[in-house]
């Protein structure tokens, strides 16, 4: 087209008057949104990585690059290993329970009964509440003076459960709230997986004389494996960077019981003004999530291929 214009030719009967220096901007316009998104995502991330190798404190006017000093301090500090245990303990236990419960709920909802139809609509209710509000609601239910939880548990001799107030029960309490909020999410995804399984596979298994457990192991589980991995991926990433439930429950207490990476990063950055150290915690958290996500994605690809075969 540019050559035509230089020769003074016409296109579709119209004279072409474009300048010889005309630049084709179309690709730039097409790539611009992706570029903006990339910059939007990468800039804060890059900034956090930079801060993590500095002594940046909110109260210090001059930022000095200190290399890996923050990381060395973190890895040599017992508090880091505690927060690692909290981060992994919370994520693994919450996701494991949610997967088992989600599977059971999905199997129950995959029936043609009136109750299953009604429950399919109701089960999403916890997902519609912000996690912080859900946590506050649970705190009210677990209140020692007027909460309903201990009242309901009193017939079982559990009238004085301390829930989030004790270092021994705070983490299980946080996991319980996480499970309450996110199990429906897993159940719905798995339900979609169950609905995608061809009935002919069950019919063939039945003809072969398979038991219900055998059908579950040989047909259901392999078929929904990619869905299970996707659920694990989503929930594991979310749980590894959890903040809202842990902070809303006890602000991370008692003591530092619920200080996972994110809560520790919050205290270091905001309360203690130590942005450099807080950023290092966030970068470590990101690295763990990244490695785990990559592993889960390659596992998912394998499972998808096996399910399709």
């Amino acid at each position, binding site marked *: 087209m540019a050559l035509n214009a230089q020769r003074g030719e016409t296109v579709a009967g119209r004279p072409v008057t474009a300048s010889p220096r005309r630049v084709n901007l179309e690709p730039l316009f097409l790539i611009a949104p992706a570029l903006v998104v990339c910059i939007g995502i990468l800039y804060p991330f890059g900034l956090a990585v930079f801060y993590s190798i500095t002594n940046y404190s909110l109260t210090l006017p001059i930022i000095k690059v200190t290399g890996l000093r923050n990381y060395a301090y973190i890895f040599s500090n017992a508090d880091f290993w505690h927060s690692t245990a909290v981060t992994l303990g919370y994520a693994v236990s919450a996701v494991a329970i949610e997967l088992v419960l989600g599977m059971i709920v999905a199997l129950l909802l995959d029936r043609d009964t009136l109750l299953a139809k009604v429950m399919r609509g109701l089960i999403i209710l916890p997902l519609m509440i912000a996690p912080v509000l859900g946590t506050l609601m649970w705190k009210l239910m677990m209140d020692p003076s007027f909460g309903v939880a201990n009242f309901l548990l009193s017939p079982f001799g559990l009238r004085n459960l301390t829930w989030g107030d004790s270092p021994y029960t705070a983490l299980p309490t946080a996991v319980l709230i996480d499970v309450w909020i996110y199990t429906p999410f897993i159940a719905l995804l798995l339900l979609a997986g169950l609905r995608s399984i061809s009935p002919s596979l069950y019919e063939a298994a039945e003809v072969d004389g398979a038991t219900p457990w055998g059908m579950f192991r040989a047909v259901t589980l392999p078929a929904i494996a990619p869905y299970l991995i996707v659920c694990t991926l989503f929930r594991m990433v979310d749980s590894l960077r959890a903040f809202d439930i842990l902070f809303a429950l006890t602000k991370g*207490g008692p003591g530092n019981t619920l200080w996972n990476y994110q809560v520790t990063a919050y205290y270091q950055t*905001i309360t203690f003004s130590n942005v450099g150290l807080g950023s290092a915690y966030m970068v470590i958290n990101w690295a763990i999530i990244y490695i785990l996500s990559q592993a889960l994605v390659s596992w998912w690809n394998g499972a998808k291929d096996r399910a399709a075969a």
Partner: protein
Amino acid sequence: MDHIDELCASLAHGDTSRREFIAKASKAGLGAALTGTLLAMYSPSAQARENAQQLAANGPAGSFDHKKYAGRKVHLRLSKHPYVDALTPDIAKFKELTGIDVTYDITPEEQYFDKLKLGLSQKSSDFDVCMVGAYMTWEYGPAGWLEDLKPFIADANKTAPEFDAADIYPNVLKNDSWSGTPGDLPGTGDAKQWALPWGWEINVLTYRQDILKKHNLAVPRSYDEIATVAAKLKTLEPKLIPFLARGKLSWDTIHPGYLSAFNAYGAKDFDKSLKPTMNSPEAVAFTEKFMSILKDSGPPAGRWTGYGVFDMGAAMGAGDVVMYHDATSLGFFQDLPGASKVGGQGKMAWAPSPGKTGTTGSNIWVWSLGLNSGSASKDAAWLFMQWASGKEHLLYAATQHGHVDTVRKSVFNNPKYQARIAAHVGYSDTFRKQAPISAIYFTPQPLFFTETTNWAGTLQDIYSGKVTAKAGLDKLASDVSNELSQRGITK
């Protein structure tokens, strides 16, 4: 001229206040010196005439003009608080007096300091004046986030003649000033005035007098007596919490009753060389005593760590608690008629801060107004600050609203205010006794929040039995020492 005559007559008869007189005289174009002279001649009281004579003699004070910044705008960053509820309806008076427009944002207290800190540290010009606590100024002031107010106070062109700094409780004003040298006590050395006191809280014993009377129990004056009375109450009133204190994982768990009594039992947070001493034998002994009371006679089933300041107020209001050692005003709002289950019935009462052997001073919390160094309207903002902490607004706020525990002696001694607080048993007497002998007992240093948040976590661990008081406080002292050293504050 007739107008001026009328104005003077009105002042002499007490129909016009000094402030109104100054404003109207300024409007009429009277010079400052003449205004001061007229005040000296026509003020109704001898003291006011004397003040005005000084004002006239000092000359430059008269050059102050309320309308100098008319048309400017000042934005306030505020925390949700009864003081703010008293301020907002009165702002129109300031606007009328100065012609300055005032806007504000209000954030719940639990989130307020995070928001404020981020704004100040980014040198945001979104706000000009903010609410701060004296402890916060130890971090915010030396970091250059707040303006030193001393030059403003000293400048007669910027400070209204009616602003009377001597009327503010001197220990409160002093506690808002600090040199910036870690370990220096407030008000010592080359101290800068980082904020202006607005309201303060003395930590005293708030208790249910009806219950103590019912069982013929004396009001405890020490923590040993609290332990005895609380143990008896546990049997006598099994449905009530005999004694309560703040227990959440937050810096504010340390400063009220715990630190007040900690100090009374001879313990300190640091020594003069800024070496942490919160693990001294006195500190360990008192902490063991404090924890033992909370475990034996505190909230049931290990619940103490769930109680923050508002939970405690609510528990007292609901009639669930017999005693707590905390801010004077916390119970005041519950004691108002209709405000709570026990309010307005003379059931609650106040007594001085329990110490080791009897009445002792208490640690104080000072709600103050700070001037953002990123502000583009500092002079107009200063005008607002002096008005908001001035006699007229504080008297209105204390008598018409909930701005109790006033920082101004004149407001406290005002008959209207005394009449207002008379219904709250022991409130006035307790305040009168405690005010002169109370102060901040923390040692100022910029890692205040690191120290106190970790301290609260340590108390939670001691309470739950994870560590002993000695082991917990030893680790805390060691951690704080390392942190101070790592940040280059100590060697």
